[in-house]
């Protein structure tokens, strides 16, 4: 029964991973850029929530109301002031600039908050759980996080499919030049996309902080988890990302069940196995191979 339990916990964890992954995948989909600072920004959001909680004394889930718009603003400004200038000159400039940014922010966090692990206390919800069977119980908190993740993914999918902005985004993704001819301001659009990406990262970061502890140096691991979820699921597919996150989560919890040191390693190995057997991912959209 511990195995069933491990799988259930893995699914819950996977919801969170799919949130990390969605922001990364969105930016790649729109401007073919991999934001190497994505994980660090997720951690930054958790620390922002910590500051809000300490100063105002609200529940961290309420702090989302402040943190998420703030992350959107950071993303917008970041894109307009920095990342936009790296586009169009090959793969190197955006990678190196976002990597440099990750190093800078990580060390600023280290300087301000020290290397200690922190946590966000969401109160009673952390201790109550639902019994599925006599042996399997799911905490309300992981379940809520999972449901929030699914809800956000559905909302985003609808947003991209149904709205004018979503259409502009998809058009720019297909052909930025043609989109510009159709009077789409790509610089603004990229900035909004980065804002959305970091806002989702903000939700993910705060939920992560409530679920477990976090420290300034955890950003790189989150970036790797996000990336693995994207690749396992298949590029360009929102549902693939959810499945990718869940597969990664299950791999990790089952690995941890085998040996405590295998939590991360088993996730990585499943990722490499998918890469070896099915490099386009489990749910690749046709023509989204790049």
């Amino acid at each position, binding site marked *: 029964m511990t195995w069933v339990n491990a799988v259930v916990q893995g699914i819950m964890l996977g919801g969170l991973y799919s949130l990390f992954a969605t922001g990364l995948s969105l930016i790649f989909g729109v401007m073919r850029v991999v934001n190497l600072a994505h994980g660090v920004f997720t951690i930054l959001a958790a620390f922002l929530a910590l500051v809000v909680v300490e100063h105002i004394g609200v529940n961290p889930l309420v702090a989302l109301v402040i943190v998420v718009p703030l992350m959107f603003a950071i993303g917008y400004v970041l894109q307009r002031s920095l990342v936009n200038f790296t586009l169009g000159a090959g*793969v190197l400039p955006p990678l190196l600039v976002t990597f440099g940014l990750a190093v800078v922010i990580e060390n600023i966090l280290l300087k301000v908050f020290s290397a200690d692990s922190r946590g966000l206390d969401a109160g009673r919800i952390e201790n109550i759980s639902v019994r599925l069977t006599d042996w399997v119980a799911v905490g309300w908190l992981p379940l809520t996080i999972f449901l929030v993740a699914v809800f956000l993914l559905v909302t985003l999918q609808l947003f991209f499919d149904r709205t004018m902005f979503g259409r502009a985004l998809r058009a720019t993704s297909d052909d930025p030049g043609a989109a510009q001819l159709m009077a789409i301001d790509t610089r603004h659009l990229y900035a909004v996309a980065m804002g959305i990406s970091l806002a989702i990262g903000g939700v993910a970061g705060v939920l992560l902080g409530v679920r477990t502890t976090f420290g300034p140096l955890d950003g790189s691991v989150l970036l790797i988890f996000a990336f693995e979820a994207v690749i396992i699921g298949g590029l360009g597919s929102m549902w693939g990302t959810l499945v990718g996150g869940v597969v990664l989560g299950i791999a990790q919890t089952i690995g941890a069940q085998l040996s405590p040191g295998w939590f991360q390693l088993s996730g990585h190995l499943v990722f490499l196995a998918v890469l*070896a057997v099915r490099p386009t991912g489990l749910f690749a959209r046709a023509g989204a191979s790049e």
Partner: protein
Amino acid sequence: MSRQVGVERSTVASRWGAVVFAGGVAILAAAPFLFVTSVLRTLVQFFYLLALAQMWNLLAGYAGLVSIGQQAYVGIGAYALLAFTNNVGLNVFLSVFLAAVVAAVLSVPTAALLFRLRGGYFAIGTWVVAEVYRLLVANTQRLGGGSGATLAVAGIDRTVRENWTYWIAFAVGIGSVLLVYYLLRTRLGLALRAVRDRESAAQTLGIAVLQAKIQAYVLASTVCGLTGAVTYLSLLRLQPAATFSVNWTVFMIFAVVIGGIGTISGPIVGTIVYFLLQQYLADLGSIYLIILGTVAILVMLKAPRGLWGWVMETWNVRFFPVQLRVRTVEASGGGSGTGASSEPQPLHRGSIDK
């Protein structure tokens, strides 16, 4: 008055540079007889950092591959050295070279997996691979597990060990520069530069793009493995978190970007700059890294060809010319052969992939 057109590779700077380079190398080769131990240790550090920077430049500057996981091979080289020396009981200096073989052997299947990813995703993929190697080592108790191990060198005379460590590091550092210089003048080097400048055009000209990139990756990984072994021959104390630290790659990126990507002199300049900054600023800890990161971002945005690129543009000097250049020579007038009527223009300018 007829004009003759000639093709040449060397420049005035490269001919004088070769003389200065040879002199410098001769002095450095004799360093164990000239300098005290602390100077030797500093030079060893400089050499292994230089080798790492050269290899990262070979990948990013010439093969168009951005890897943020080269620390994988630093760690593999270091731990292979540990395994051959401590567990098998071989001579520690012999083990350094066997460690390079291990890195080469492991880089081939790794490349087979990683080359399924492209661009930015390739970059994170290399990082995952480095993490996998780190976790595998950390879970292996015979290699010291997560807390690490120390290289068993108690049986070797201290002076002998330090001198030979120096000479191996010296050979690896200088050798890495010469290797890249030689490589770029071969067929593979020409292919790599073509791929970097425009991949699709190179492909239509019949260059086996993927093959060229894999060759560059395996070569760079082998040398990184060798360098990792040399590094820990000098440091002696191994620990998975430090040996497989992404900071190795942070350094490589910094040195190459600041110095000038896609040139051979660039990583040398970058390593010197990094080295000087480190001597004075390393005590600042995280502030030091904040400065490094900010400088790298600014260089990337404002002067993407780096310090050396700026020097080349301003004074037109090339110490390691790899491209053939056309120069016209006045046949009459009896000037010396190098009395060019026009400033020699490179056929190919070493630009970052545009």
